[in-house]
């Protein structure tokens, strides 16, 4: 059962008494082979959960870093089908790390929900996050994903009041992704003080672990979030390492994985430091 990998990972994190680190990278960025090398290196570098973005031409909730990453992925020819192949190649060498696909709805509309769910499950994917598919529109997709026991992971935001959180919590599983700022990815940083009570509210409403993302750029920031959330997500800062590597003419995987290590270490050490 695929959803099991997410639940098992959060149970293990709880037992260890620490938050998890979720690394977001883009399929095909900067090329299919390098993206696979990055994916394969992520668990050892400290990623507890992987979010694999699949490129879309019009990523309207993303800031410039992930927009550029999507363009690089598209340029490398990564379709949704290609992303699933990449997922399968990763899964062949790693049976435990939860793998979540993240992107926009239209490629799934084209693929067909049922076919997508079937192929994603076969590729070893555990769940999906679809940015532009709110609960009101999600039932047909949920039906397809349920049939393959894939999680539909929902987003909660600073604009979600208690009534809204109830709607968000319906038909979701795995964890809830708390978008800590009203904005696009990789631009604003949340007020730390506002994150803890928000995480608590989301946890209470959903009964699920809460991962917090948007605006996590530094190890210090990652550690701060790790003290209050069940997991910390970083994305823009990782795909920016790809951009920097391309600019410097260096191999991208080493740079991305070094950044993952720094952020992952900060997340791992966060609660320990606190008790010292």
């Amino acid at each position, binding site marked *: 059962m695929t959803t099991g990998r997410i639940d098992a990972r959060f149970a293990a994190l709880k037992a260890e008494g620490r938050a998890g680190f979720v690394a977001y990278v883009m399929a095909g960025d900067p090329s299919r082979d390098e993206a696979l090398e990055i994916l394969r290196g992520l668990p050892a570098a400290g990623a507890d959960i992987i979010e694999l973005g699949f490129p879309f031409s019009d990523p*309207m909730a993303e800031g*410039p870093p992930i927009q550029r990453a999507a363009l690089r992925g598209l340029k490398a020819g990564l379709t949704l089908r290609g992303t699933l192949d990449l997922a399968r190649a990763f899964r062949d060498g790693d049976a435990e790390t939860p793998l979540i696909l993240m992107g926009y*709805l239209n490629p799934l*509309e084209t693929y067909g929900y049922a076919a997508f769910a079937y192929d994603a499950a076969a590729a070893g994917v555990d769940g999906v996050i679809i*940015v532009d*598919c709110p609960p009101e529109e999600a039932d047909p997709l949920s039906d397809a994903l349920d049939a393959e026991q894939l999680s539909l992971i929902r987003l909660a935001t600073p*604009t979600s009041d208690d009534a809204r959180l109830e709607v968000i919590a319906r038909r979701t599983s795995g964890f809830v992704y708390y978008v800590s700022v009203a904005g696009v990815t990789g*631009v604003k940083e949340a007020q730390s003080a506002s994150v803890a009570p928000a995480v608590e509210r989301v946890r209470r409403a959903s009964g699920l672990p809460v991962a917090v993302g948007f605006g996590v750029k530094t190890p210090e920031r990652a550690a701060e979030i790790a003290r209050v959330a069940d997991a910390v997500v970083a994305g823009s800062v990782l795909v920016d390492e790809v951009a920097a590597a391309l600019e410097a003419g260096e191999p991208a995987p080493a740079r991305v994985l070094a950044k993952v290590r720094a952020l992952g270490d900060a997340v791992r050490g966060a609660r320990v430091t606190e008790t010292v």
Partner: protein
Amino acid sequence: MNAIIPNQAIPNRYGMPDADGRFGPYGGRFVAETLMPLVLELNRAYEACKADPSFQAELDDFLTHYVGRPSPLYFAERLTEHHGGAKIWFKRDELNHTGAHKINNCMGQILLAMRMGKKRIIAETGAGQHGVATATVCARFGLQCVVYMGAADVERQSPNVFRMKLLGAEVIPVTSGRGTLKDAMNEALRDWVTNVADTYYLIGTAAGPHPYPTMVRDFQSVIGREAKVQMQARRGKLPDALVAAIGGGSNAIGLFHPFIEDAGVRLIGVEAAGRGLDGPDHAASLQGGRPGVLHGNRTYLLQDEDGQILEGHSISAGLDYPGIGPEHAWLKDIGRAEYRSATDVEALEQFQLCSQLEGIIPALEPSHALARIGEIAAEIGKDGDVVLNMCGRGDKDIFAVAKHLGVEL
């Protein structure tokens, strides 16, 4: 003649959209979760205004005295003679303040935004007509205005950029993607998701997440309501057909909607075929696309086999969008409306023909509708009447047209 005919005067058994903003499989609310509370709040606010007679009275007053409504229904006698078929009438929305139908919607939405207590207005624009109309109403009511416009369009439509700036708007060129209307819409959505507390997104066409397609349609329906009364007064009957150009589809749905229940009235939309429907360079989403999800709604889209959105092409920057309002998608599927197309070359010919025969320089958008009017008039025959929505005037296009005709200005 009675200036404005209220919404309630026309029964609507058609009943679209449903409570979730769906026109059959189309429409809906496909936005990021951060925006969901905002679109739900917008829907509540719009429903409250619709039920409030003082809102309609205020809107009517501005439409009459500021916009200049009702627009005339004009018998295009020489064009009728030229084509030799049904009588051709122009619904002259190009005579509105700012020169296009766009202001009908902007006036409605700005009054709504003010009732919601919003102080900052954002908009996207392609050719600049909606940007100018938005900047105009923001100036009139003293609200901050930010217009997103593709960098390529900023270049192509510099007179409208200057007009917006004169009106006090900030124009932000969008370089992401390919720098056209769809990228401007992405950027406006990114602004909205970032500035949720004080910002109102004033969408210019009958597309986007619910309630925009319905709200824009309702505000633009003043065109069709007037045309209905005017045709009755002039000819004592309903027209046999209505013809309008389609980009996102707001002028067309505004003309069509009050006639949807009138089965004898043919509704004909004309899409931009650009360099031809057989190639990739067109903007005919209904005839060359397939259903998908973009910018908040499910509708027909120009897209590749992976679901990536393609750029539309048209000589008219106002039609150059890879999607279409969801109500048109529905009207096409149920067969209530027919959709045809016209190429860049045909639009250019009609731009000149209408100028010379009627003394009316049409915008390139209605020039597409003009390209099909001859054959439609012939199909209907001499006893019939066909109304064409003259949704914008061509002043904005003279530079582009001159260039295509090889004339130095």
